[in-house]
């Protein structure tokens, strides 16, 4: 069987960055596997701009951001296989892939980096009632049809869910001549970035129905109408609040889930909240030598942070294959009050890098708060925030020295400023 030092699964923003970082950290034997015809991942269909502000100091369209990374990778001795789908991964890091040129191949990897991105939650995942006509799409599928192939999937559109892809597609479809009648969001707040609320909905007078969800889907062959209803505090529809819309298309922008089929096969522990892997301070999963990063680990708001996480995982995997760190049982890091999840889940202060970036999402919109990292009653680190929102990932950076005296589990909580 062939063996490779590092095999990276997924050639989107996380995988490309991981490959470059792994090489820059001394690994000279890297195989990058991508299921599509070219590298770039989901960015290739995200033709809107706003990518790269943190990384490149400029705002790029998605395909341009991808191209800049592909250019950085191009001259490095990293072997890239496109049109290649990984179908098995086991806990001994045997990676089995298929492609038209080689057929069925198994490679033994010294380390594996999972950079598979995420998938859209579909109609089945949210159990929407009604008929099953054509015309119900995930927003990302409609985006791919429109931006890469030139097909507009409908003329009169309603959007369920206020995630960024839904908002971006609302604007995009209006610009291409469709009528977007509204966006319904089951939560009392929007899930999208504030700028997208403004430039995608407000600019085009598209109404946003907060605390509403779709309660009926009509049409035998093609969708011809939907009904939305207001929901109560337990998110149950309230009778008598129905509003009907005559539409031929319903786009779903109801959340993204990390793609973890291979991780499960390899036996990696999954995080109940992120639905991605549980990782330690080196982005390593519970299976030694298997690392995870990007939207395949937890769903990000900004691609710049996906790339950075790819770099972290790439650097860590390179150190792992050189034997520069041996995984240890660390101390648990858990979400405290007001925090929905925190990554990493485990930290070993003695082998961590000089700095650790802890990523978290809060449970609700708040102002004037502090993010507090504690071991028991002892405060380790405190960061002040003017505002926090579930739609924005937060970070707390801790230095190795600050964690040197840790001897038990830690929690990270949101608290009001006293």
């Amino acid at each position, binding site marked *: 069987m062939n063996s490779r030092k590092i095999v990276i699964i997924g050639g989107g923003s996380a995988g490309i960055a991981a490959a470059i970082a792994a090489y820059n950290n001394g690994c000279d034997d890297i195989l990058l596997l991508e299921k599509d015809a070219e590298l770039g991942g989901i960015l290739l269909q995200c033709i809107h701009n706003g990518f790269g502000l943190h990384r490149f100091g400029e705002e790029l*369209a998605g395909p*341009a951001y991808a191209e800049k990374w592909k250019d950085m990778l191009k001259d490095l001795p990293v072997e890239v296989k496109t049109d290649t789908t990984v179908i098995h991964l086991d806990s001994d890091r045997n990676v089995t892939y298929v492609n038209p040129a080689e057929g069925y191949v198994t490679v033994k990897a010294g380390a594996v980096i999972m950079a598979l991105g995420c998938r859209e939650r579909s109609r089945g995942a949210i159990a929407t009632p009604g008929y099953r006509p054509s015309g119900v799409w995930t927003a990302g599928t409609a985006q791919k049809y429109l931006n890469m192939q030139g097909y507009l999937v409908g003329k009169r559109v309603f959007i369920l869910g206020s995630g960024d892809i839904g908002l971006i597609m609302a604007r995009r479809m209006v610009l*291409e001549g469709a009528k977007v009648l509204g966006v319904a969001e089951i939560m009392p707040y929007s899930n999208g970035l504030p700028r997208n609320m403004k430039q995608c909905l407000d600019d085009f007078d598209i109404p946003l129905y907060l605390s509403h969800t779709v309660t009926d889907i009509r049409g035998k062959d093609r969708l011809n109408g939907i009904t939305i209803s207001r929901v109560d505090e337990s998110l149950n529809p309230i009778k008598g609040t129905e509003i009907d819309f005559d539409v031929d298309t319903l786009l779903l922008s109801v959340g993204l889930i990390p793609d973890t089929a291979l991780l499960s096969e390899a036996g990696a522990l999954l995080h109940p909240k992120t639905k991605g892997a549980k990782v330690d301070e080196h982005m390593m999963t519970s299976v030694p030598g298997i690392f995870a990063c990007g939207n395949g680990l937890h769903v990000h708001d900004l691609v710049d942070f996906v790339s950075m996480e790819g770099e972290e995982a790439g650097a860590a995997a390179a150190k792992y294959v050189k034997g520069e760190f041996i995984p240890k049982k660390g101390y648990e890091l858990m979400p405290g009050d007001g925090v929905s999840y925190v990554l990493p889940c485990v930290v070993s202060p003695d082998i961590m890098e000089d700095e650790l970036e802890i990523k978290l999402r809060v449970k609700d919109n708040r102002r004037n708060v502090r993010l507090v990292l504690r071991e028991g009653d002892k405060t380790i680190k405190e960061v002040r925030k003017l505002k926090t929102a579930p739609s924005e990932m937060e970070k707390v950076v801790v230095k190795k020295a600050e964690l040197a005296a840790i001897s038990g589990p830690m929690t990270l909580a949101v608290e009001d400023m006293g």
Partner: protein
Amino acid sequence: MTDTNKKVFTCIVCPRGCEVTANLDKEGNILSIEGNSCPRGETYVKNELLNPMRQLTSTVIIEGGIYDRLPVILSDVIPKGKMMDVMEALNGVKVKAPVKRGDVIVKNICGLNVDVVASRSM
């Protein structure tokens, strides 16, 4: 009764989305701008009050490429009210591969002094 009024904007210049407040006098003149994290936020709010500007991205038909559409972007922002004019003008624009990222696809579109450029190579 006050002599001033406040207008609150969500800045769209970058994903940070700052909430920026403009304090205006009775005539609508800007007295002060606060809440922005960078100078671009101030410019954004000034433009938003006087002449809102937007970036626009779309696609054009490409022949001989890996896909059927080439993503394009404007070299600079345009007045918000001109977005549909540009979309109209892009309708039917056809290019042939190969195209390099940054290549000008339509020069000075709709006489707005901005170019339509390729977002990627193909």
